[in-house]
């Protein structure tokens, strides 16, 4: 045995492409045979190889190569960047950008004001020969006032002013506006063009022309052209666009505010019991199984189950429900919620990425990553925008040169620069993503998770909302209301009936069965153990209990089993008329009695139904219950259309049928039993009870069990789409109107033209207004 000098190291490498034990075996053998490996184990389930190796003899990279040599994929795990760290990095970068932009803007705006003042004497000198600038005309009285205060200004030769202006402009172009030129250049090398291209070409042309005039005014004078310079325009353009970028960067930072607030909900530390001693630990050290203590007024650090204590917990930050939820031992609790009045001790069941809060954050981030179909048009325009604008600017130059007033080339230059500067591709690119971002974030704060732009678009166009009654409009926890033996003095009395029915239902997962089992346990009845248990989907269950054949189900099932319901038929009718679900029980082949079960209606169901009708949507109730029960419930809620007696596997068909009528259907369900129907619907809305939700099931997830969330989702979608359309319209129309005006389309008729500085201001306002419009969604209630 040779002695190992270095300590063995260990690493875990994710392996992809393994499908069977033979695969993992092959990878494992290859690893074990390779030099420097002392031990290797490959887990097929987790798809990972754990390798102990001698760092002196091999490296993780070489191990990856070994695995790849076997034909499977391997990858060294990248340092996992969680949502938080990514957001932090992004925030830091954005803050640095804002600081940088602010500095550059402040310097250039000071330069711009000075440039304007210094241009005044030049305007005097050049008189009306230059381009009539309305801004300049407004400044004329100021200019005259300045001359009275500083009479020497008029005496300074124009040459000196031009050189002063150059000295003022140079740092703005070379420092504050430098990134416009460098970015335009890198883009140009890739045959692509963006906003920077337009600014660089526009200001570059104006600057280079002015530079030529400054260096050789005589050359222009000889040719009968007044040596007019446009330094002031260059500086103003850069200053105003920097301001626009600055405001845009700040506004864009705010669009992610909702996610930031969600992340901020987590407390930094947790107080846990370790070896019977209370210690405070950072959240990152919290483990599943830890027992956590939470005092009143403290936030819960993770998801878990209450072990001890009672309290009310405010879950509004996750569910949007303002009413605190009572918690007793055995109840689930969710991290980031606020403990109100009692002390709780709970066991941690989920930490980190598995917690409800982390899943919400992930879902919202994914939602913000999707691209709404409505954006396709904007994308197509963006793709061709800049080259088209460049072409338009050249055409503008030519037209002014050929047909414009003298000095034609000066007018041509100014008009072309104005076209380049006013064109704003940014507003087009920001129109949809900013609105989707703010809207999905705001939705999350209200407990409504909308999975992206497409879900928003579809939700807007809905005209029908189908509720899978149980768990959405009703509590989803049916309780036994009445137990009616077939005859009071018959072989099976009331407790006996409930006991036998509950016994056969003992292993059933049906909610009605659970209600009977709960009721029997609550009454202290001893349950038997059923054998030959059989569940007939949607109809009932049968089994042998203490030697007796017991069947519990609906009338159809009893008939199927050859049992005559006898007097139970009318009883069932009566119960159904009262809104109860009758469960008929047969014992030993004879009708033994009926049990009436009802699922209490949620307090806000009626309001939600009315709210949907106000929005012009038709609410429909879909249920497996019999028609009379269903209609009784529907009446109390205010729903007119009921589709009853639908077996679970037929729900999908019902949705299809409604869609075939030309309806755009939302299906509201619990996301567990009705996943196919949710997927078939135009919008699947998964609704949880409390924070227990199948979040991934629907296009929309309601974190609370409150049906009013459906109304909120539709309203938010409509509001968002309205904002998106406004944004797109504004971004589009701005360019469609702005570019021709900048090109001088109104000049022949009205003599109206824009200056480059005015174009820069318009462009800055345009993109900022789109982001600001999207930010209005933050106030959605």
């Amino acid at each position, binding site marked *: 045995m040779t002695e190992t000098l270095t300590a063995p190291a260990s690493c875990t490498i994710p*392996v*992809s*492409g393994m499908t069977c034990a033979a695969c993992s075996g092959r990878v494992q053998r290859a690893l074990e045979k390779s030099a420097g490996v002392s031990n290797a184990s490959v887990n097929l389930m987790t798809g990972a190889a754990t390798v102990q190796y001698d760092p002196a003899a091999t490296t993780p990279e070489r191990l990856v190569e070994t695995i*790849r*040599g076997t*034909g*499977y*994929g*391997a*990858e060294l795990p*990248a340092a996992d960047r969680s949502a938080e760290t*990514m957001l932090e*990095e*992004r925030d830091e*970068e954005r803050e640095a*950008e804002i600081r940088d932009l602010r500095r550059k803007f402040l310097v250039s705006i000071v330069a711009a004001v000075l440039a304007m003042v210094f241009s005044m004497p030049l305007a005097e000198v050049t008189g009306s020969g230059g381009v009539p600038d309305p801004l300049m005309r407004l400044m004329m009285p100021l200019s005259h006032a300045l001359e009275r205060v500083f009479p020497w200004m008029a005496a300074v030769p124009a040459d000196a002013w031009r050189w002063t202006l150059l000295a003022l402009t140079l740092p703005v172009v070379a420092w504050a506006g430098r*990134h416009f030129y460098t*970015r335009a*250049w*890198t*883009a*140009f*090398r*890739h*045959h*692509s*063009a*963006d*906003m*920077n291209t337009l600014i660089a070409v526009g200001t570059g042309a104006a600057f280079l022309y002015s530079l030529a005039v400054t260096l050789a005014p005589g050359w222009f004078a000889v040719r009968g052209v007044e040596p007019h310079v446009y330094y002031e325009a260059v500086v103003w353009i850069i200053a105003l666009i920097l301001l626009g*970028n600055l405001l845009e*960067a700040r506004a864009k930072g705010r669009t992610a505010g909702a996610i930031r607030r969600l992340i901020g909900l987590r407390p930094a530390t947790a107080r846990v019991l370790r070896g019977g001693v209370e210690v405070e630990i950072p959240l990152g050290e919290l483990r599943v199984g830890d027992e956590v203590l939470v005092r009143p007024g403290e936030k819960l650090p993770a998801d878990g189950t209450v072990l001890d204590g009672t309290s009310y917990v405010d879950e509004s930050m996750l569910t949007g429900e303002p009413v605190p939820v009572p918690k007793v031992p055995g109840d689930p609790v969710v991290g980031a919620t606020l403990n109100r009045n009692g002390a709780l001790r709970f066991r941690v069941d989920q930490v980190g990425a598995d917690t409800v809060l982390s899943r919400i954050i992930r879902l919202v981030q994914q939602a*913000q*990553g*999707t*691209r709404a179909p409505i*954006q396709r048009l904007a*994308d197509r325009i*963006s*793709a*061709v*925008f*800049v*080259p088209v604008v*460049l*072409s338009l600017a*050249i*055409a503008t*130059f*030519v037209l002014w*040169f*050929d047909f414009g007033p003298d000095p034609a*080339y000066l007018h041509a230059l100014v008009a072309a620069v104005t076209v380049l500067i006013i064109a704003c*591709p*940014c507003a*087009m*690119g*920001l129109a949809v*993503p900013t609105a989707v971002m703010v809207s999905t974030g705001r939705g999350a704060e209200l407990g409504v998770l909308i999975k*992206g732009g497409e879900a928003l678009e579809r939700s807007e166009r809905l005209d029908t909302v189908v509720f899978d009654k149980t768990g959405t409009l009703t509590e989803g926890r049916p309780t036994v209301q009445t137990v009616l033996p077939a005859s009071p003095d018959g072989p099976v009395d009331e407790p006996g009936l409930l006991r036998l029915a509950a016994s056969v239902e003992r292993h059933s997962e049906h909610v009605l069965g659970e209600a009977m089992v709960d009721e029997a346990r609550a009454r202290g009845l001893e349950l038997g153990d059923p054998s030959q248990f059989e569940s007939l989907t949607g109809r009932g269950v049968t089994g042998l209990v203490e030697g007796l054949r017991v069947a519990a189900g609906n009338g159809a099932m009893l008939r199927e089993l050859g049992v005559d319901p006898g007097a139970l038929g009318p009883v069932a009718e009566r119960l159904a008329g009262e809104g109860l679900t009758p469960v008929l029980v047969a014992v030993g082949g004879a009708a033994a009695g009926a049990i009436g079960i009802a699922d209490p209606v949620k307090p806000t169901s009626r309001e939600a139904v009315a709210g949907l009708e106000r929005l012009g949507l038709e609410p429909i109730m879909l249920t497996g219950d019999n028609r009379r029960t269903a209609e009784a419930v529907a009446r109390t809620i205010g729903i007119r259309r009921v589709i009853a007696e639908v077996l679970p596997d037929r729900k999908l068909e019902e949705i299809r049928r409604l869609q075939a009528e030309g309806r755009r259907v939302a299906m509201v369900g619990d996301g567990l039993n009705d996943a196919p129907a949710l997927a078939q619907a135009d919008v699947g809305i998964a609704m949880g009870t409390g924070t227990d939700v199948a979040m991934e099931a629907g296009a929309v997830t309601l974190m609370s069990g409150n049906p009013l969330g459906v109304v909120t989702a539709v309203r938010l979608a409509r509001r968002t789409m309205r904002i998106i359309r406004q944004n797109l319209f504004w971004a589009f129309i701005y360019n469609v109107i702005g570019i021709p005006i900048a090109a001088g389309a109104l000049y022949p008729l009205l003599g109206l033209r824009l200056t480059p500085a005015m174009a820069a201001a318009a462009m800055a306002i345009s993109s900022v207004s789109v982001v600001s419009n999207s930010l209005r969604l933050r106030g959605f209630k």
Partner: protein
Amino acid sequence: MSAAQIAVTLAGLAAIAWVNWYFFLAGRGEAVAVAADQGVQRARIVVRGGYTPATVRVRAGRPVRLEFDRQETSGCTEEVVLPDFGIRTYLPAHQTTPVEFTPQRPGSYEFTCGMAMVRGRILVEEK
């Protein structure tokens, strides 16, 4: 029309033609990265004013890992979007950010910056 006007008009038309050729046609023959690997198909894409290479060739049905190396701070490229795969990822400046997905069907898929101004293509070929 004076000679100068004719000259400027012709030059203008030529410039327009060149702009459209340069931005729409000339850039298309760009370098293609073939992501070939046993398991995960990998390709490194430099983000600097554009995507280099702008076209990546991969095979359908196998995972793809694109490593975006963003070598600039320009806000334009701070996000990369793969609309067909539901991915929008932030690319920190001067870092390499991996993006993973598995294309199931052959075809041409786009990836763009957050505002769809900078573009690249993923050509997915038959297995």
